[in-house]
């Protein structure tokens, strides 16, 4: 269902999300959280190769914003955007295989965690680690939409920390001047690794950066999934209508460390618990669904159960997946040549020796 349901009805406004769509938002948020919890178990069992990155407490802005896109729109996720990728059609199986560096993972074991994409069908782009770079890249993706008069939109995420990079600045400015149909979401989760936002930027509101690029800037509650959807959707509609980029700052909070190893010693005591108890996006949304939309607990439990089942099945499949074939490491750096040769001292030794037979005339060495 992932892919198809990633398409919000063309003209929907924040108001007219159907009850099914509202429940779907819950499904994506729950799937995100349950999948990450499963990854934690696998990490503890050392089945995850490399680091594990959580989006605990940020599921609403990831899911809500991505839900504003159509299938043909292109999304550029970051490390906290597991939820966005799921909405755009990435599957738990792909994510689990990727984290476990399996040979049948989306990158065949070449890249880590959720660094993968699909621009053929589901339209999300594989990120790289270097922060900021995805902004100019998405400026170009969306420039191509404008040049070809395609009614498509792009969405790129940056963290509060990544707004300090030159790449962010050059990319968003390029998109603004070229009026590219690009939405830039600043996920302000109050920290960049250990650095609080006020050590990252002296501006109180990161949304205020928009004025310097001559584009609209808005700020909203990133822990409210419907508001995250609504603000993003307005920006998406503006972009699609030819109105150019919008900067949307979504306020949220990173409840886990930068990665699983980070003990968060730098976080003031009580801060995390406060956010967990008072502002958990899933708890808040469950209440909203109950109070405003008459969703009863059983309905949500049924979704939770379904999600657990999906994650269980995906885990079994992923664990059964084979590791990559070593020689595949040499394939596909270029379209031409399709593969790199193995170096001479691996299986090349014999031929190397032959290649080095010396003309008799040469040297004092005996053969």
């Amino acid at each position, binding site marked *: 269902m992932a892919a198809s349901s990633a398409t919000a009805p063309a003209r929907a406004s924040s108001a007219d999300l159907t009850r099914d769509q509202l429940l779907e938002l819950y499904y994506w948020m729950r799937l995100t959280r349950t999948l990450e919890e499963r990854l934690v178990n696998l990490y503890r069992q050392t089945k995850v190769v490399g680091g594990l990155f959580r989006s605990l407490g940020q599921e609403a802005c990831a899911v809500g914003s991505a839900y504003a896109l159509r299938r043909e729109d292109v999304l550029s996720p970051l490390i906290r955007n597991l939820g966005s990728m799921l909405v755009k059609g990435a599957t738990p199986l792909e994510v689990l295989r990727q984290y476990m560096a399996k040979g049948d993972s989306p*990158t065949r074991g*070449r*890249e880590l965690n959720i*660094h*993968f*994409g699909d*621009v053929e069908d589901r339209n999300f*782009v*594989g990120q*790289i*680690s*270097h922060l900021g*770079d995805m*902004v*100019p*890249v*998405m*400026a*170009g*993706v*969306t*420039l*191509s*939409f404008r*040049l070809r008069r395609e009614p498509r939109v792009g969405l790129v995420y940056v963290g509060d920390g990544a707004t300090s990079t*030159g*790449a962010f600045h*050059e*990319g968003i*400015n*390029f998109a603004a*001047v*070229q009026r590219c149909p690009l939405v830039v979401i600043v996920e302000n989760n109050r920290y960049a690794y250990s650095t609080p936002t006020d050590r990252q930027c002296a501006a109180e509101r990161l949304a205020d950066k928009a004025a310097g690029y001559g584009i609209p800037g808005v700020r909203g509650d990133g822990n409210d999934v419907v508001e995250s959807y609504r603000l993003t959707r307005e920006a998406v509609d503006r972009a699609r209508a030819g109105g150019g980029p919008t900067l949307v700052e979504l306020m949220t909070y990173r409840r886990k460390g930068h990665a699983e190893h980070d003990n968060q010693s730098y976080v003031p005591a009580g801060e995390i618990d406060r956010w967990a108890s008072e502002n958990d996006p899933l708890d808040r949304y469950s209440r909203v669904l109950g109070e405003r939309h008459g969703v009863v607990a059983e309905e949500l439990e049924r979704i939770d159960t379904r999600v657990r089942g999906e994650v269980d099945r995906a885990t079994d499949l992923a664990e059964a997946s084979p590791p990559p074939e070593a020689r595949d490491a040499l394939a*596909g*750096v*270029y*379209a*031409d*040549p399709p593969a*790199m040769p193995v170096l*001479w001292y691996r299986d090349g030794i014999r031929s190397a020796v032959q*290649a*080095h037979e*010396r*003309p008799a005339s*040469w*040297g004092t060495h005996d053969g």
Partner: protein
Amino acid sequence: MAEVTYLEAIRQGLTEEMERDASVFCLGEDIGKYGGAFKVTEGLFDRFGADRVIDTPISETGFVGAAAGAAHMGLRPVCEMQFIDFVSCAYSILTNYVATARYRAFLPCPMVVRGPSGGYVRGGPFHSQNPEAAFLHTPGLKIVYPATAADARGLIKSAIRDDDCVLFFEHKYLYRRVKEELPQGDGVVPIGKARLAREGKDLSIITYAATVWKALEAAAELERDDGLSVEVLDLRSLLPLDDDAIVATVKKTNRVLIVHEDTVTGGIAGELTARINELAFEWLDAPVRRVAAHDVPLPYAPQLEDFVLPQTSDIVRAARWLAAY
């Protein structure tokens, strides 16, 4: 058919590719109505319009990244660096994002980054650079650096048609000094093939770009004054390198002089020497030697620049040493 300069040949290649393939477009600083700092794109704006010849803000990372994104979507962008010295400002996105796109994410990234390079023009330390060596250890990139007008036209076409990112270095000293009649027809020149610029049997000079012409001058002088028969191999492609052509000339003359304009330390001559060692060591009758720039930032004053950069007389003296060895 009239003679065409190296610069006009690049423009011609660009124009013909833009005519042939509607997905090709150019972006860079002041390349539109103005036609670029060296006028390489002059006329393209009027001919192809603002959507295919795009003036960008001063943001090398911005527009190189944008080119990559457009390339993912099926376009074929050609980025101009106003001077190649500014490609350093896009170094990270080129080496990390662009070069790895196909390998790590199966993202096609057919794009070209081109710009005026090289010295001998009193440009000083920031308008004379030869950055090719900095990209040599980045799998995923290709590098070409033509020395003739025909190769300039033929290689810009190959670069644009290539399905990966090609860095296309243009030597600004050659822009208007080198001219020739271009071959009829498409005239495409494959990436990865060197060009034998002069045949010889006593000694090989392996070089590329502006120093090809200095090597040819030196070869003529050495033939006249010393009766030496010097072969000159113009690499044209620096990544991938044409190992077959390199090995062939080594086996033929057994003496190799590598000449380039980049600094001696860390320049591409090192990689060439290593390959010659690996592939043709036994055929060497003398050590592979290098003639290159002194290891300093390139100064501005003529007296200083001429002293730092390799000159024809340097090649002659080094070749004599090698021949006498």
